[in-house]
């Protein structure tokens, strides 16, 4: 086993341990909204903050860990940046949990300005939270930079971005994995820079009391948050492009001009798509709102269309042997389309006026995360486990996929239906006149229990095999 094998297995163990805990937080929230449990408002919002930040955090690092591992097929990947990323992630998560559960930080995962200064009971929680952001940001920035340097050592920038394919040349060849990883890394780095600026402004206010421009802070927050969430999906897609054809017994994908065009477009447009989070901010200049609307259409469509046709073309008449990994990848792409469609509907200004503060929002982001991005990473994890142990988890295949997909679909459907009934989001208890909220929270909570029932045996299966990788000679 190489150092990268061990580090990847360590990432998998860490993520696998946190995942069911974060699911449990979500279930507690839904059961509280269903009036089955009686949590205090503070506990509810603390759980909401922990659930959101942990889920985004673990699946971002897992998607990046998958890409780091697969990148060694093409370039020489140094382990130390990923190790720094791991250590600083642990520090960051530790500080974050201390702020949430020790200092009652309950800002929600967006931590919108000025909430970190108010939504806590202990003043130190603000500083600890900002330090945790700093630790996570620096760790991930170093890790991203390490991967980018590794790529650029082998592929010049223009080649890594497949510009020669855009011009119709077929050589030198840029594998789709390199193209998508490069565009994703170049997309991520600005998100981290935005986070650094944001953090600096937060710290200035913390130290001096000087207030910041709320509009600027919100723009920076979503530049960071929205871009991070999008790019982690693209890391998942990179993994899929690399592994899925082989799982179907087909030749690796080639970078066609339209593939190169789609991903180069994504690189630029994804930075402006976040403007759709600010439709309600009437002080945002109108022209920016138009850009947000257009970018929200342009950013996902090329990537989704190209990937979907590629995946369907791969499966068609392939004689694919379905086991955990290909099922996770295939289902992930299909639900990515559904979640993406839900997101595009919400990103249309006229719809956003109706849907913005409803459960439609968690509906679509849970669709492309729980049933999209997480499945891409679970696909990588099962592939990795089979590579290292030879066990493809065939005994778990039917129960895990059935429970996970059934539970996941029921869970997000409860959100969609409640959202279409205008049930509001981000509330711990629904008022009496929103009786639909209680019912669909209960339905969602019960289906989420099915997801948890699928995840627990899967995690045990993964932990036992990855443990051996970490401690192998």
């Amino acid at each position, binding site marked *: 086993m190489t150092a990268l094998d061990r580090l990847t297995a360590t990432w998998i163990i860490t993520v696998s341990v946190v995942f069911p805990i974060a699911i449990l937080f979500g279930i507690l929230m839904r059961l509280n909204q269903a009036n089955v449990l009686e949590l205090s408002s503070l506990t509810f919002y603390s759980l909401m903050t922990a659930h959101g930040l942990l889920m985004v955090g673990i699946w971002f690092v897992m998607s990046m860990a998958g890409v780091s591992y697969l990148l060694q097929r093409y370039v020489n990947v140094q382990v130390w940046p990923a190790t720094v990323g791991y250590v600083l992630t642990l520090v960051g998560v530790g500080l974050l949990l201390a702020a949430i559960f020790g200092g009652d930080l309950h800002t929600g995962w967006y931590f919108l300005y000025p909430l970190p200064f108010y939504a806590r009971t202990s003043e130190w929680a603000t500083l600890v939270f900002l330090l945790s952001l700093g630790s996570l940001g620096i760790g991930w920035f170093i890790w991203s*930079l390490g991967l*980018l*340097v590794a790529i*650029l*050592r082998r592929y*010049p*920038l223009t080649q890594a971005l497949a510009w020669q394919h855009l011009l119709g040349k077929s050589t030198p060849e840029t594998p789709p994995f390199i193209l998508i990883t490069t565009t994703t890394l*170049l*997309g991520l*780095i*600005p*998100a981290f*820079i*935005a986070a650094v*600026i944001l953090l600096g*402004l937060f710290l200035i206010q913390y130290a001096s009391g*000087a*207030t*910041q*421009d*709320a*509009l*600027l802070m919100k*723009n*920076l927050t979503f*530049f960071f948050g929205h871009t991070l969430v999008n790019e982690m999906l693209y890391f998942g897609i990179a993994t899929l492009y690399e592994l899925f054809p082989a799982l179907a017994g087909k030749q690796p994908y080639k970078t066609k001009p339209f593939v190169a065009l789609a991903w180069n477009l994504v690189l630029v447009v994804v*930075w402006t798509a976040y403007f759709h989070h600010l439709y309600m901010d*009437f*002080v*945002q*200049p109108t022209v920016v709102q138009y850009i947000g609307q257009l970018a929200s259409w342009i950013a996902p469509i090329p990537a989704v269309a190209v990937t979907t046709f590629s995946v369907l073309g791969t499966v068609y008449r392939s004689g694919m042997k379905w086991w955990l990994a290909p099922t996770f990848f295939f289902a992930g792409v299909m639900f990515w389309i559904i979640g993406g469609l839900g997101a595009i509907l919400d990103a249309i200004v006229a719809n956003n006026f109706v849907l913005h503060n409803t459960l439609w929002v968690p509906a679509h982001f849970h669709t492309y995360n729980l049933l999209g991005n997480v499945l891409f990473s679970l696909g990588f994890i099962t592939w990795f486990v089979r590579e290292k142990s030879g066990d493809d988890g065939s005994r778990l295949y039917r129960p895990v996929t059935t429970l996970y997909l059934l539970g996941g679909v029921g869970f997000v459907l409860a959100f969609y239906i409640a959202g279409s009934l205008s049930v509001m989001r981000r509330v711990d208890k629904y008022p009496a006149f929103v009786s639909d909220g209680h019912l669909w929270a209960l339905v969602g909570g019960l289906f989420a229990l099915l997801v948890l029932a699928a995840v627990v045996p899967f995690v045990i299966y993964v932990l036992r095999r990855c443990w051996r990788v970490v401690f192998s000679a």
Partner: protein
Amino acid sequence: MLACSVFGLISAIPLWAQLNEGHYYLRKIPDVRLVLATGEQTTLYSLIRSHSILLTLFSARCGGLCSPYLLYLKQAIGTTPQGYAVVALSFDPRDRLEDVRATAQRLGFTDHSTWRWGLLLQEHVPRLLTALGYSVHYDSTRREFDHSIMLCVLDQRGNLLRRMEGFQDPVLVWDLVREARGEFVLSYPIPGTDVALRCFELDRETGHWRLSWGMALLLVPPISSFALAITLQLLIGLRRRR
């Protein structure tokens, strides 16, 4: 003369306190006791039970701005509020109910069903004035109060939603009325001097805005990303050549 002193007082309030409406936004206003011009003893919260209210304070003995201000509000808002209530309360400890009634009549409010006129119980006055940010200073030589003139909106839970000082464009007064009716009214803090980087600046004279350095700051991350990638590429190339 008195007008000058009142405006002088307002201008003496720090700029941020005058402009930063957000400083008061959603502040919980205490449930003070009062006596209405009808003689009914009640509380502020009982007045907001059925409607949000527009609240203004006055002194019946004020020889300065109170009467012109109440007349200005009457012209701007009208005398028959719908979907909200207007409450005018005397804060002056020397005022009696007769004084309050006389003021209402003098200003043309003969029907008690229009605006609600009343008198604050003296022991509750300081709490209310502090919560509203309403400044009062007794000038013993003139035997008059130097005080703010202010209109504010309280919702049905006693939260301060809007607060406007001084004589303003009636359009702005109607923003308060719409807020009291529960309509969505756009508002954003006017640029102060305490924020270093703003997305745009507003010309307070013309109402025109222009993009500012805060918005430019949003260009830094993507430009830095390309600059970083190109720099890395050059460094790797240099190292390879060596």
